[in-house]
């Protein structure tokens, strides 16, 4: 099947602040909405030279929503747009998550920090397809547990924070170990900061399970032409934006 890509000027039609530094922006982007598969991303205009990668967090009618944390120039630019402003969006890009063939295999989502932004659409569609879903969510503190309520609509959610301000104190890998000790036969889907991904991959290896891991490497082009976003796989650097962002946990060297 030929890949469909769009370069569109999309209009901001709705925006919402989710507490300190977290925002959701909805753009009118029918081309993206009708071609996105869960876990894919877009490159978005940033007010700077390069575009920035963002997962599509949810879709709603013709709208594509993006959930992001303000950390620098581009995310700040995005948060300050006014309704009606237009920005360049390039996508959909990359390879998303795959749902297991076995409908009875439960899906275990493991999210770290803003990595959660990838999952609402993943979980909703999984729910619609009839999978059982559980989410493990690790964040710095209670303030960073954004869109937990939304994910609870689709299944159980267990949170853990670095400072213990909500849920248990500790790291999400502890929750994952508990889960895998109970049941190894779960389809694991992971997204979060690179150090967390590496720890999760180690846990997967310990338990001899293979998870689907979404990487967040620094990207210049987002569509495979610059070789900036690489991770090591079997002695070779492969592109997060093209071969990924979702990759098998056993294919990536940590």
């Amino acid at each position, binding site marked *: 099947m*030929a*890949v*469909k*890509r769009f*370069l569109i000027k999309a209009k901001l039609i709705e925006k919402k602040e989710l507490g300190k530094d977290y925002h959701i922006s909805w753009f009118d982007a029918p081309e993206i909405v009708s071609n996105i598969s869960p876990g894919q991303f877009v490159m978005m205009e940033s007010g*700077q*030279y*390069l*575009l920035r990668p963002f997962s599509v967090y949810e879709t709603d009618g013709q709208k594509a929503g993006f959930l992001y944390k303000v950390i620098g*120039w581009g995310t700040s630019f995005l948060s300050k747009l006014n309704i009606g402003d237009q920005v360049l969006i*390039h996508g959909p890009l990359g390879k998303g998550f795959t749902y297991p063939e076995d409908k009875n295999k439960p899906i275990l989502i493991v999210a770290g920090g803003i990595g959660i932004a990838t999952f609402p659409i993943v979980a909703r569609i999984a729910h619609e397809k009839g999978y059982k879903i559980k989410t493990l969510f690790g964040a710095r503190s209670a303030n960073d547990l954004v869109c937990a309520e939304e994910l609870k609509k689709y299944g159980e959610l267990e949170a853990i924070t670095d400072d213990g301000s909500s849920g248990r104190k500790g790291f999400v890998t502890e929750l994952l170990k508990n889960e895998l000790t109970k049941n190894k036969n779960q389809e694991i889907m992971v997204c979060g900061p690179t150090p967390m991904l590496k720890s999760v991959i180690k846990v997967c290896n310990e338990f001899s399970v293979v998870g689907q891991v979404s990487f967040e*490497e*620094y990207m*210049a*082009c987002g*569509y*495979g*032409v*610059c*070789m*900036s*976003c*690489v*991770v090591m796989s079997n*002695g*070779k*650097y492969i592109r997060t934006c*093209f071969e990924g962002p979702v990759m098998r946990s056993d294919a990536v060297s940590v």
Partner: protein
Amino acid sequence: MSSLETNLGKVKLKNPILLASGTCGVAAREFEPYFKLSDLGSIVTKSLSIKPRVGNPTPRVVEVSPACGMLNSIGLQNPGIEYFVKNELPYLTEQKVTCVINIVGETLDDYLQAVDVIKNKSEFCAIELNLSCPNVEGGLDFSQDPKKAFTMVSEVKKITNIPVWAKLSPNITDITEIAKACIDAGSDGLCLINTVLGLAINRWTKKPVLPRGVGGYSGPAIKPIALRMIWETYKKFPKTPIIGIGGIHTTDDAIEFLLCGASAIQIGTANFVNPKASIEIIEGLKKYMEQMKISSINEIVGQAHLQSEKPLAKSAY
């Protein structure tokens, strides 16, 4: 009728727009969703070496604020020239693209071995020798020492009939010295410029951002540097075709390069922010030529050097 057909000495292209090495994957396959590769003048492959190269660790790229461009330190990651010929070249042939093959190495012998693999192949319209990659140890030698550049080009010319273009580095005091050495050695064209050496510091870690410290600066900010070097080279060697590279993003940029003395141009970093940049520039050039009643694009090459020429009317394409 306006014609975009471009003459670069022995090399004829359907239009003057190419994709620059390292900014279009290995063989530009990734552009398939956006346009037909055969609509371009040509593409330049990623720099290929005799042995595959793994490339540098990440981060490989850092942006230069506010909108100046970026630094890269990819480290010439490539699958090797033999792999390319076997697995990528058939794709380009199928797409009806006669490409420019870019070759790199650490020693003269590396280059010669790589050229040897492709020396008789008609699928290439030119060989671009990357004399100037700043991202490997000693990588600048051939582009900073006229004697070495001369030896390189003349040795390559001895073993192949494919036209040879030398791609030069801007990281030098007088570009025309190296240009002269390459022309004397029989270079059929000169590609300028490669990236400009730069560095970025991370104020939190208090270290350079890129693992090797330095990186190659590309994008909008290097355009005036490229134009200046093309200007100087064209002035001294107006008969040698120049392929201009450096910060070209729009039709306006492209026209400026042609007027400055480039017969063709390569689109580099602009591809990252707009995959259709090259094809939009081709459309823009067509409109410009119609509007200005220019019958052949070759006519405007180097026109900025003609002192007495009537100024062109303000463009409104």
